């Protein structure tokens, strides 16, 4: 089952860097993560927090240093041990809510189509229904994604990810497009699922407040060095690595000041991360 008392390092970043040609995105990222942590990643747009998430996901690779999962290099393609919820396009538009989750169960099977039949299908349907009730979609099983609100779509995306029992759940600005009230509900849901399924969560967010009270640990991505003549000469690193719940207000304001000006300035341009 679970290694409840495990204090082993799960993810280890050793001097990680990422560059695209001349542009340095990340540099000198050194960090260890234990199983069961809930880490929030904040920072200005283009600071590399999403890039770091994509490295764990396996769709980007570091150009320097090593990223290890259980002491081994992290796989260079996505796998079922690392679930993901994107800001959008995370669900399959041609399947109903229930079919979306049953399909996720089917994909676990190593067959050509992943279709389930007979008893297996019945069991998957039951499990999917239970999962959907857990995330509050029990009343919308037979609706298509285009008939759901933004919040409901994200609930579905989370249910899909969690039913596959990933060890790591990656959330890439999952609530960025939602109203504040709905966002609060989603926080409760994610915290519940995190505790219940003993997940290790990485969540990228623009909302510093979200980072300060959700989860166990907060990472702030920012540039340590800055060359005004060549803004991309240096990459960002993790400038603050804070346990959540023990941070004094002045520090919050200081970090807010550091990441906010850039943040608001770049808001109108669609995110390039």
């Amino acid at each position, binding site marked *: 089952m679970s290694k409840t008392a495990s204090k082993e390092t799960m993810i280890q970043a050793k001097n990680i860097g990422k560059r695209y040609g001349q542009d340095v995105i990340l540099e000198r990222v050194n960090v260890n993560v234990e199983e069961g942590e809930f880490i929030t990643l904040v920072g200005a747009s283009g600071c590399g927090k999403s890039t770091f998430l994509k490295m764990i996901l396996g769709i980007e690779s570091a150009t320097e240093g090593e990223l290890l999962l259980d002491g081994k290099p992290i796989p260079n393609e996505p796998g079922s041990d690392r679930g993901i919820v994107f800001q959008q396009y995370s669900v399959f538009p041609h399947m109903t809510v229930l079919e979306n989750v049953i399909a996720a169960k089917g*994909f*676990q099977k190593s067959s050509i189509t992943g279709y389930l039949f007979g008893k297996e299908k019945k069991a998957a349907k039951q499990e999917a229904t239970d999962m959907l009730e857990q995330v509050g979609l029990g009343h919308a099983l037979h609706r298509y994604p285009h008939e759901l609100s933004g919040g409901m779509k994200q609930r579905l995306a989370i249910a899909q990810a969690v039913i*596959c029992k990933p060890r790591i759940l990656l959330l890439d600005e999952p609530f960025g497009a939602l109203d504040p009230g709905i966002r609060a509900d989603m926080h409760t849901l994610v915290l519940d699922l995190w505790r219940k399924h003993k997940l290790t969560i990485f969540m990228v967010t623009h909302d510093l407040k979200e980072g300060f009270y959700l989860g166990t640990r907060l990472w702030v991505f920012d540039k340590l060095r800055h060359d005004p003549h060549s803004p991309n000469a240096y990459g960002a690193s993790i400038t603050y690595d804070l346990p959540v719940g023990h941070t004094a207000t002045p520090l919050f304001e200081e970090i807010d000041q550091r990441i906010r000006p850039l943040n608001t300035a770049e808001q109108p341009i669609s995110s390039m991360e």
Partner: protein
Amino acid sequence: MGKSMKKLINYKPNRTNTILLGLLPFALLIIVYMVSSDARLAINPNDKLLPAFSQMGESMYRMAFEPSKRSGELLFWQDTTSSLMRLGLGVLIAGFVGLFVGLLTGALPIFAAGFSPLLTVVSLVPPLALLPILFIVVGLGEVSKITLIAIGITPFIARDIQRRTQEIPAEQLVKAQTLGASTSQILIRVVLPQIMPKLIDAIRLSLGAGWLFLIAAEAIASTDGLGYRIFLVRRYLSMDVILPYVAWITFLAFLVDFLLSKLNRRLFPWSLEAKS
């Protein structure tokens, strides 16, 4: 009154007026035709260029309900079924091949690298220029006509499907992988169903070209078919057959397009709304 008149640019006709305005050009065309036809027939009752509607009706009745003296067939229906059969088979083959090639090249970069340049070149070959080759290789029978239609529209369908496949958000493909899906599972469960409505759209768009190739092939080498008939009776200036046949071909083209669009809506209810 003058002041309260809207500018022309702001005037939108209501539903009834929209329909009436739409019918108006048709009514005008028919009236112009009838007047011209009457005028010519008044001068020369044997005039063939603009036959009266009654003459067309008689000719079509003969072709549709009286067995041909030569073959004993009802020519109109024989022509219609032959042509629809050729078009249907050609389009079906093009649909299958186009879907297969488009899906693989759209979803798998390694296939795109191998086939995209070839597909681009093939799509630039004018299909009608291949017709003599087809006649030489597969003969003058049904196969050459069906092959021409298939060859003519497959590249279009394949490239359209390739583009539509590439338009599926990468997030979905990554998501499927994090749920444990294999390549074949992603192709069959995630990509294929989302491409099916696009395939029907691509077929609808390619049907115009399909009819073109059908009629061209039938005009050159055939013993029946709608295209064959209008080119045959051209020798006798039989406008009383050609005009109704052209109208019939137009109606069939409209009908097929309409049915395909209905089918799309029926089979894939999520597709239209999901676009927005």
